[in-house]
């Protein structure tokens, strides 16, 4: 974007280019302090020795990663086997986050498409309507969701009054409850980027496809979807990544019966375990997974850019 602007080659643009590094300084400094330093601290902590009841001893140790990947039994003196506990917890979180992403996409794409195809003056109103529930704090929304879904809650009362079910559906304290919470929390992160992409889409392309005898399905899969793909991918990432680390929904709607990645890490810092290096190691492993995902995404984008160009 910036290079495109500078391509004009006017004198004032060149002045900007000179100053750009300096103008970007505040952003770089903020990023460094708020992102790089904490991540570096976590990386270092994950290789330190744990102090009993929280804290670290400044001695190099691989114990945290050992604990994550190797099972040495209840007393820590059996021969090492593969530790499935934490892999199971990670897998549960990934599965939940992936399901939430797919659900959000299934609802979010038609919603975004609908909004983007309204008359231009109406679109802001629709977007506004999508964002209204999100003015309320996430914690309060999740608690309210619990009131709606619980055994004696509004949803079950309604379904029973309608005669659709006899006994209440048990949703709270199950994985389905967690799923609903995640999906609901992050849905707008799916709708908004897709909306932005669809809004920029040139609908005469659809007409051209129709002129060339493409069916509506073919138009959707071969013309519209490739054009709005960056928005879809951005939406998926914006839903998947926060869902992965979420601990509000698992805590409140899942009853904290099973650790998710977020609650596992929280436990290391705030629970009895007080195992900071292990919490840091689990965070680093999560971060690595997310980074790999983002790199895949970036490569996809570069490829797409090349073929398009």
């Amino acid at each position: 974007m910036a290079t495109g602007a500078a391509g004009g080659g006017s004198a004032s643009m060149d002045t900007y280019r000179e100053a750009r590094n300096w103008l970007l300084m505040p952003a770089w400094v903020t990023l460094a302090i708020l992102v790089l330093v904490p991540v570096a601290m976590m990386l270092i902590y994950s290789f330190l020795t744990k102090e009993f009841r929280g804290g670290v001893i400044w001695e190099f140790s691989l114990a945290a990663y050992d604990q994550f990947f190797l099972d040495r039994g209840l007393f820590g003196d059996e021969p090492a086997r593969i530790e499935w506990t934490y892999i199971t917890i990670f897998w549960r979180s990934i599965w939940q986050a992936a399901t939430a992403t797919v659900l959000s996409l299934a609802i979010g794409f038609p919603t975004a498409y609908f909004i983007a195809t309204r008359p231009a003056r109406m679109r802001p109103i629709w977007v506004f309507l999508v964002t209204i529930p999100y003015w309320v704090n996430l914690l309060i929304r999740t608690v309210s969701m619990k009131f709606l879904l619980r055994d004696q809650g509004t949803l079950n009362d309604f379904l029973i009054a309608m005669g659709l079910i006899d006994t209440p559906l048990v949703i709270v304290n199950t994985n389905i409850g967690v799923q609903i919470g995640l999906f609901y929390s992050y849905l707008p992160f799916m709708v908004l980027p897709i909306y932005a992409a669809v809004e920029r889409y040139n609908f005469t392309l659809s007409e051209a496809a129709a002129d060339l005898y493409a069916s509506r399905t073919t138009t959707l899969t071969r013309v519209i979807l490739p054009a709005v793909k960056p928005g879809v991918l951005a939406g998926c990432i914006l839903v998947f990544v926060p869902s992965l680390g979420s601990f509000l929904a698992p805590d409140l709607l899942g009853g904290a019966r099973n650790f998710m990645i977020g609650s596992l890490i929280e436990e290391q810092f705030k629970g009895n375990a007080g195992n900071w290096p292990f919490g840091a190691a689990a965070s680093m492993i999560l971060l690595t997974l997310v980074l790999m995902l983002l790199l895949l995404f970036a490569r996809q984008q570069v490829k797409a850019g090349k073929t398009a160009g």
Partner: protein
Amino acid sequence: MKILINAFTALALMTGANAATADDRLVLYHWFEYIPQELLDKFTAETGVSVTMDTYDSNEAMLASLKAGGIGTYDLSVPGDYMVAIMANEGLLDTIADGELKNKGNIAPEWANPNYDPGRRHSIPYQWGSTSFAVNRDVYGGDINTTDILFDPPAELQGRINMLDSQGEIMAMASLHLGIPQCTSDREQLKALDAMLQDAKQHWASFNSDTAKEVLVSGDAAAGQIYDGFAAKAREEGANIEYAYATQGYVAWMDNIALLRDAPNRENALKFMDFMLVPENVATLTNWAQYNPGVSGVSALLDPALATQPEKNPHADAGPGVFIEVCSEDVQAVYDQIWTNLKK
């Protein structure tokens, strides 16, 4: 959720604490829902010291927050019995010199020299009580005075039990259930503890401390591990629940106001401690929180209903009340492993 709230309040506090002058402020780090606002207002009216309060939901969360940099931000916190010992060992508590508290003599003799804080050098009594469990009598009418209710529940209660999300409370109760000592280093006993909890978990709907009362009132849980005063409040809020004292025993506890190291408003902290040793104020607290006072001369000022409250009066067959013990590092490592197995 808890992390978020704590992080935001801590941030707000840090910026606030820097801005205000040290003369007129007191920063409390306290349990949630554990002090009536009228008491804080009264303290402010008497001393001119305004109170800022941040809350936590477990002793361990409080310890973690202090060790992660909270020390120096707060003046006082309210650790449970075993946590006072841990905090003192960690060097997180300041020492109250002789004569610094003019009302120290009001402490009830039986609480004046507890083993977790000999001579009360760091802390004063706040409230004491028990942690056991309560059962909804509309759901289950049988005998509830057994820890089987939690760990091997009757069919009516299966899948409808809320446990406190607290390793210490669950391990202590589970040890009572199995009849083994707390913090045992016996391998067979530890294996049995692990196996028993794994098996019991299928009957538990949730682990939650901060909604332990609400789930009983709403009927989401038919039985739940709970503190005695919380159970009394749930009953007053309309839940047909009965608080049980199992024949195997129950967990006893005492919370204490402890003076933190590097307290930014140490003078005001001592004023508050003195304030919380005045029988009249302790009575206000006790009538509201519905636990028991650790200060002499309070009983005459208490709501008469409290004395006969079923939650406060263990029946003749009740087992012993035991305090949570502090495990050695080795045993704690096994406890952590068992806890992870339980929640994986």
